[in-house]
């Protein structure tokens, strides 16, 4: 019964979305306040209906309702409760439901927090948002309905892919979707503004909270995905340049560019047309990502639910929305006149350089991702494009970006002098060179990437410190430090995020150039050296989990005779899903991780064992979290709240 209600709510949400897409737009054209006012309540109703529908599907998973096809294919009575809940979105249909839930949530926030928006702009934004929802709800109802029943329910389910039965992956998709879908708000704002034919400073400010929120969710989602790959896939890789990873990375790059160019619109009323284009492209890349993941056109490690029909549906949505928006852009971009004038050397130019590097690097990722398809179609040539290409083609842009970033961040608006802007960086440059030389001396004979990466990382972190100190104005160091705490949160957010990029670069470089690896056969009782540590295989035993069995090795790690700890790498077999996973044992540390993997028994006795020292591994994800936290700080700066200004009026209303 509850499942049927959920199904019904989904259909109702589709109807509401249709109304939301059509009526407010007509109202905005005719200047009819009644029709325009439909938008807000419709967006809230749509959100509540989809939330109910999502709740109903969750209920079906939690109560093991095996009359639902989706539950049968993705669940099992013995599966732990956390993964029964996570199983709701661990498949194509359910993840699409989560997608539209996030979409309708963002629409509702535009109503809840958008009190300051002009009525017409708000009506148009919500109308565009409604149109996107119509497309996805239709795709769900007609090609991927999660609520289909089975005539003959089986006694139990097929279980979920065990690689997905992991806390990291349980929460990785929701963050990613909140990010992808959040970019639809920037898209809706851009299309609404293009229809209106005007973009001003206020537009830059209004679009900022949603873009920032989407960006920070994407940042967290990508960071979690990378961390999951590191500990779950069994060899400590953290990024594979897989098409699906690229699918999330491309919107992130464009969203980062958009975040920065929207600042120029807000502060200086320039780069308007370019910002519109970025807003359209950011959501376009989200849709391309969805297409890549769901169509199976490009093979990937974790493409799921590949189905030509669904792929075509996403492609059609992509063509209609992005094609339509780009046409609108071509017609209207000429009307968006720039107001702010700036010199060649200025913060505006710095942000243009940022945008150029980010969009070009996104283009490189894009062309690399689709190249196998292009080569196949044009020359009937089967080509692979893997990590070695991306590392070689993408890295130069990030290196350039990291070099110019700290200086660009402190350049004054309108007109700047490069010499004067560079002066405060003397100390930071000295520290950078010293760190690079130190890294070179400590690791001489190994890859040249190490010292370069260290230099970039230190340059970014030190540059962020210079940025903050510059914001504190003149005077002695003491009085400037005292002023640090009174800086606006947006300044702290910017410095934290920029420093986070440096920390991530350091983690990547340390992991790729200084990791220690050891592969050997070890018999119980034997020990071997791993860097400064000694590792002993104490014994191997079997264990039973809720829906798997595991072979667990007990490893004793010592350093100079003193025990550091015991670690338990394992191999799990999931009988219902018919799959096996390796569970690496990781001993995390701020200076580096010890990473042990145990393999199969060998013919001559003993087990294959892979051991790694991963120096500064955790810094990679720490940097990602710092970037996201910078976003949170910036988002919480009250100057950027949409409702800023409306709040005071609200408190004047007497309590009842």
């Amino acid at each position, binding site marked *: 019964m509850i499942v049927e209600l959920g199904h019904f709510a989904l259909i109702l949400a589709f109807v509401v979305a249709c109304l939301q897409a059509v009526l407010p737009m007509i109202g905005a054209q005719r200047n009819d306040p009644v029709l325009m006012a439909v938008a807000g309540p419709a967006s809230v109703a749509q959100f509540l209906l989809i939330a109910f529908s999502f709740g109903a599907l969750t209920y079906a998973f939690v109560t093991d309702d095996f009359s639902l096809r989706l539950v049968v*294919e*993705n669940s099992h009575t013995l599966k732990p409760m956390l993964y029964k809940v996570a199983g709701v979105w661990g498949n194509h249909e359910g993840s699409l439901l989560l997608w539209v839930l996030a979409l309708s949530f963002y629409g509702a926030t535009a109503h809840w927090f958008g009190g*300051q928006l002009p009525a017409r702009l708000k009506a148009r934004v919500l109308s565009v948002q409604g149109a996107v929802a119509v497309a996805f709800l239709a795709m769900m109802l007609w090609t991927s309905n999660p609520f289909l029943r089975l005539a003959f329910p089986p006694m139990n389910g*097929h279980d979920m*892919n065990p*690689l997905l039965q992991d806390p990291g992956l349980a929460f990785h998709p929701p963050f990613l979707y909140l990010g992808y879908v959040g970019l639809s708000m920037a898209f809706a704002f851009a299309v609404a503004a293009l229809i209106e034919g005007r973009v001003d*400073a*206020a537009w830059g400010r209004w679009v900022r909270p949603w873009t920032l929120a989407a960006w920070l969710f994407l940042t967290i989602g990508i960071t979690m995905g990378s961390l999951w790959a590191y500990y779950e896939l*069994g060899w400590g*890789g953290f990024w*594979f340049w897989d098409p699906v990873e690229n699918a999330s990375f491309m919107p992130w790059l464009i969203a980062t560019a958009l975040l920065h160019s929207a600042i120029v619109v807000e502060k200086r009323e*320039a780069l308007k047309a370019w910002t519109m284009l970025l807003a359209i492209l950011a959501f376009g890349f989200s849709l391309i990502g969805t297409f890549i993941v769901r169509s199976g056109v490009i*093979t*990937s*490690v974790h493409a*799921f*639910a*590949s189905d030509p029909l669904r792929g075509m549906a996403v492609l059609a949505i992509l063509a209609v929305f992005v094609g339509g928006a780009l046409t609108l852009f071509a017609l209207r971009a000429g009307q968006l*006149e*720039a*107001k702010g*004038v*700036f010199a060649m050397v200025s913060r505006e*130019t710095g942000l243009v350089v940022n945008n*150029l590097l980010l969009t*070009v*690097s996104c*283009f*490189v990722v894009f*062309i*690399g991702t689709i*190249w196998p398809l292009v*080569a196949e179609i*044009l*020359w009937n*040539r*089967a*080509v*692979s*494009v*893997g*990590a*070695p*290409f991306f590392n070689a*083609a993408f890295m130069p842009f990030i290196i350039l970006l990291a070099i110019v970033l700290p200086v660009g961040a402190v350049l004054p608006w309108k007109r700047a002098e490069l010499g004067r802007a560079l002066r405060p960086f003397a100390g930071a440059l000295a520290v950078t060179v010293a760190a690079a030389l130190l890294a070179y001396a400590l690791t001489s004979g190994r890859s040249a990437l190490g010292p370069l990466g260290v230099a970039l990382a230190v340059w970014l972190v030190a540059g962020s410190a210079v940025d903050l100190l510059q914001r504190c104005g003149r005077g002695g160091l003491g009085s400037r430090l005292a002023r640090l705490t009174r800086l606006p949160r947006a300044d702290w957010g910017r410095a934290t995020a920029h420093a986070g990029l440096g920390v991530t670069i350091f983690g990547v470089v340390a992991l790729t150039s200084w990791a220690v690896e050891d*592969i050997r*056969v070890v018999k119980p009782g034997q020990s071997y050296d791993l860097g400064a540590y000694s590792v002993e295989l104490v014994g191997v035993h079997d264990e039973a989990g809720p829906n798997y069995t595991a072979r667990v090795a007990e490893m004793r790690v010592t350093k100079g005779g003193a025990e550091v700890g015991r670690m338990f790498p394992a*191999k799990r077999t999931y009988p219902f*899903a*018919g*799959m096996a*996973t390796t569970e690496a044992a990781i001993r995390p540390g701020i200076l580096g991780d010890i990473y042990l993997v145990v*393999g*199969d028994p060998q013919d001559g006795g003993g087990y*294959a064992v*892979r051991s790694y020292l991963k120096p500064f591994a955790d810094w990679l994800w720490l940097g990602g979290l710092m970037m996201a936290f910078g976003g949170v700080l910036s988002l919480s700066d*009250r100057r950027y709240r949409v409702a*800023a*200004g409306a*709040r005071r009026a609200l408190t004047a209303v007497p309590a009842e």
Partner: protein
Amino acid sequence: MRRLALVLSLIVMAGPALAVRPDEMLPDPAEEARARALSQGLRCLVCRNESIDDSDADLAHDLRVLLRDRIKAGDTDQQAVDYIVARYGEFVLLKPTTSGGNLILWLAGPAALLAGAALAFAALRRRAGAPEAAGLSPEDQARLAALLKDQP
């Protein structure tokens, strides 16, 4: 979903949990290091976007052994890779060659950067020379004032 499970189970169940197995490794550490470096650039053909160095599949194992045999036989890096490409096609290369149409792929990034930089430079030059546009219209001014009123 069933098909996906099948594909994944093929990948995971095909071999033991470890990619490079101890019994494959060459006794000479220098040769083994060369083999590792080369195998990171070779694709496991039955896997999805994994190198033979990372993959557990049986075919990846066979390719690793084949590569090491060539190195033991005295091949240079280039000869060993060419040997495998001759048998499995250029699909096996994770880093595409620069031959023919692939040149477009390799030059796309630098070309886009140059084109973008030229366009941006031209636009900025025009902008820098333009006179300061008129300020906000009175109604915009009023809205801006209302928005900024709450600022510290």
